[in-house]
């Protein structure tokens, strides 16, 4: 708490309009979540006592808002309400799709909220994250390695990407933590070497690219991460890492050519993966033409599209559609369930909320004063954006389906914790960026 500066009265006053705006947005989000939850109880004949997740949500929102007012008075006023809106929407959806998971998901909301607030209590320059980048990343990698040895799957089938936390049926997915640690590592590394990356370039035909001397270590660390993920068949996260890496490399080097090269590499990697991994070949084939196998391999995606179609413009209403027809709808296909029950209006709402969240994150980056903070804010924003784009695009058959979660909304504790950590870091960064020098 040493870095916390006591606030002067005029300081709080200066930021009062922003705090009011955040409060208003939280209230609006809370009203939306409450109305939907009441509608769900009516549609499903559930007792009023089932409103408790909304109460927990409201306590988290109110408590979080109050604490953030004290610790980060100059924060971005949109980040927290948007994150809470999407999380509350996710709670509605889980209470509707798999009521038995509501307790777990709500508990993870409390854990995520605690993590977010804990971050605001840490030194705000985030040196703890920047200075020990190798330690953090290797620690994260070690956890990921553990999943190869003692990994489990809570569903007992599928890739073993989780670690049992030693009590109940509580599991953690280390690749979720690794997402943040990798972005932090890249931000820290590029921030330190960025200037050299721009100056010390080598010619590659008509183009100039950063010298291998600077790219070598980061490529190595990143490569290990991706190889472990591919080993674990967590190809969605591997793709996510690749895209985030390319985006951060572009921001650090300013070389658009690297993006072209990255895209070419991604296509080559996809072609190789298509040949090497049956699961990749299957997913790509299903994506390209799911209709002939609509009763077998293409079932999930075809049913997902039918669910989107059933929603139409206004949707069927919460609890009134049949999204349960899609297998594992609560994690991979949460977006399709939203499309069915809230319609196009709902999906545009989710897309819009995520897009605004990402734009605000990029704004935090633009206003940052340290290269590390800039790259970290931009990297975390791109992480959220690409993850959302990958799964929404997958559900809508715009890209092959990758098993990543829809941030804040999909069922999954590790994912929710990661999303809250990202928002927590962005809030901390926005406080520094938004302050007058």
């Amino acid at each position, binding site marked *: 708490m040493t870095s916390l500066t006591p606030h002067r009265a005029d300081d709080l006053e200066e930021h009062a309009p922003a705090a009011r705006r955040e409060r208003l947005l939280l209230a609006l989000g809370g009203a939306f979540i409450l109305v939907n939850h009441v509608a769900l109880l009516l549609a499903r004949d559930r007792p009023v006592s089932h409103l408790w997740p909304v109460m927990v949500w409201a306590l988290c929102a109110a408590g979080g808002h109050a604490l953030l007012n004290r610790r980060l008075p100059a924060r971005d006023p949109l980040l927290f309400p948007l994150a809470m809106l999407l999380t509350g929407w996710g709670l509605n959806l889980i209470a509707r799709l798999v009521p038995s998971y509501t307790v777990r998901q709500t508990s993870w909301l409390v854990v995520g909220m605690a993590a977010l607030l804990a971050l605001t209590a840490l030194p705000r320059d985030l040196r703890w994250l920047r200075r020990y980048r190798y330690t953090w990343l290797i620690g994260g990698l070690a956890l990921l390695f553990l999943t190869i040895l003692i990994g489990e799957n809570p569903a007992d089938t599928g890739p073993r990407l989780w670690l049992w936390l030693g009590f109940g049926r509580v599991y953690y997915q280390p690749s979720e933590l690794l997402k943040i640690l990798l972005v932090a590592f890249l931000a820290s590394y*590029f*921030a330190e070497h*960025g*200037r050299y*990356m*721009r100056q010390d370039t080598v010619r590659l035909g008509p183009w100039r690219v950063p010298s291998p001397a600077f790219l070598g270590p980061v490529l190595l660390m990143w490569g290990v991460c991706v190889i472990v993920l591919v080993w674990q068949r967590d190809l969605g996260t591997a793709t996510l890492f690749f895209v985030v890496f390319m*985006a951060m490399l*572009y*921001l*650090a080097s*300013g070389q658009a050519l690297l993006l072209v090269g990255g895209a070419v590499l991604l296509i080559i990697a996809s072609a190789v993966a298509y040949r090497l991994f049956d699961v990749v070949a299957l997913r790509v084939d299903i994506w390209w033409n799911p209709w002939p196998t*609509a*009763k077998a391999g293409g079932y999930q995606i*075809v*049913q997902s*599209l*039918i669910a*989107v*179609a*059933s*929603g*139409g*413009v206004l949707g*069927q*209403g919460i609890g*009134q*559609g*049949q999204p349960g*027809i899609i297998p594992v709808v609560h994690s991979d296909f949460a977006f399709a369930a939203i*499309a069915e029950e809230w*319609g*196009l209006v709902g*999906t*545009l709402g989710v*897309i819009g909320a*995520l*897009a605004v969240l*990402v*734009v605000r994150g*990029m704004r935090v*980056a*633009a206003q940052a*004063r340290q*290269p590390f903070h*800039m*790259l970290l804010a*931009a990297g975390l*924003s*791109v992480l959220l*954006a*690409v993850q959302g*784009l990958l799964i*929404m*695009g997958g559900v*809508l*058959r*715009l890209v092959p389906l990758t098993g990543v979660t829809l941030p804040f909304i999909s069922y999954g504790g590790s994912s929710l914790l990661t999303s809250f950590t990202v928002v927590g870091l962005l809030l901390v960064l926005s406080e520094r960026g938004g302050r007058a020098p």
Partner: protein
Amino acid sequence: MSDSPIHSRDLGRMTLALLIAFALIATGAAYWGVIAAEGLRTRDDNARNVLAEQRIARGAILDRTGEPLALSEQGATGVYVRRYPHPAAASAVGYYSLTYGVAGIEAAYDAALRGDEGRDKADILLDELLHRSPAGSDVRATLDLGVQEAVVAALEGRAGAAVVLDAAAGDVLALVSLPGYDPNTLDAQWDALAADRAASPLLNRATAGLYQPGGAFQTVVLAALLGAQTDLSDGGERLLSRTVEDGRAPVVVGDLTLGCTGDPPGDVLTLANAYAYGCPAPFVAAFEAGLTGDFLWERLRVLGLLDASALAGFQTAAARITQPGSAASEAWAALLAGQGALTVSPLQVAQLAAAIANGGSAAPLRLVDAVHGPGVSDWQAVAGMRQPVAMLRAEVARALERAMGYAAEANAATQQAQGDGYTLYGHSALAYAGPDETPYAWFVGFARSSEGGHAQTMVAVVVVEGERDPAAAARVAGAAFAAAHAR
């Protein structure tokens, strides 16, 4: 900012790229959710359609006495299950399957049964918005379960078809096709039913089965011979009592040798005797008695034998044939013997018999007479064409009735349809079909009763497959008449 490794221009470009990607996702959501939605929603594998269907309180189908033939019962999960208390009525009632669609009355009155009829657009829209399942209308069939079950029982599991009509109203009292199916277990047995090509249990033989008429065609030829007479003021007596040399002589048509179905008294027969005992010779030689091909063909058309009969919602069939040339004497002989290219459905023949019983005109056939909407106090008569269709001159019909009345008294096989309380008019015949010359027994006739001053005429047409004894068909008709008379 000058020493910053990041240009805000690059951040801006990255943000723009991400926003474009989000816009693409929004476009994709709009495409599948609105533009391509219709095609996706109507796909067979959209289980929502089945689930929505299961929530419809589909109306009941009742027989004319109010006995339920089909009804929907709600299970614990709110899902409705269709139940058929009397599987014997299946060939009329049909089936309602989420997998295999609808047939019979279930198909003909599907819109009324599922509640799509009789609601205005605003109600439909409101119901859809509030996810209220529509309640369907009940449908009252003209079918008489007692008659239907009596016919099924009398067929004793044999393959065949029967149509029983109330001649004046055109009401179908029984519509039987065997072998059939149990609509309660249709989904489970569909594959076996559909694969059984020999027995064809899914084919409705009464409406769409095309049978060789054989000797049953004699009624048609007799109608044409009578129709060719300009003066029938004697009731056709002159023609019917005309003697025919070698009247009981066998007739050879192709590989078949056709004889009488009964044992006529003596060698010299009147035309009425030949008809009564089913002797083919005078009918095959009808052209020698003055009938022409063109005249006969025109009669076939007027009697409805060249077109499928109309029965709402039922698939009906007619033989697709063209008139033989005037020189094709063999084709004409086969046709006159009922062993030619012309095949007929029991429904077509029943309508002809009804016209004979009705003085020459036949009421349009119907299987449903009223619909009862939810929240409506009374049954509403089903709208439809009720104007009788003239098929025969009244004198021709009367003369045919005389011939059939005489046949019912004379022929021992036809008498099997006789019972207490009604006067029988009928004709028994045999037909042969296919390369193995499978025999079919026919009965075509009607029964008049006038108990308590209430005149009623029941028509019955029966075909029993694989049967050489014409009495077998007459016995089934007798069971139908007895059941109809008893009600």
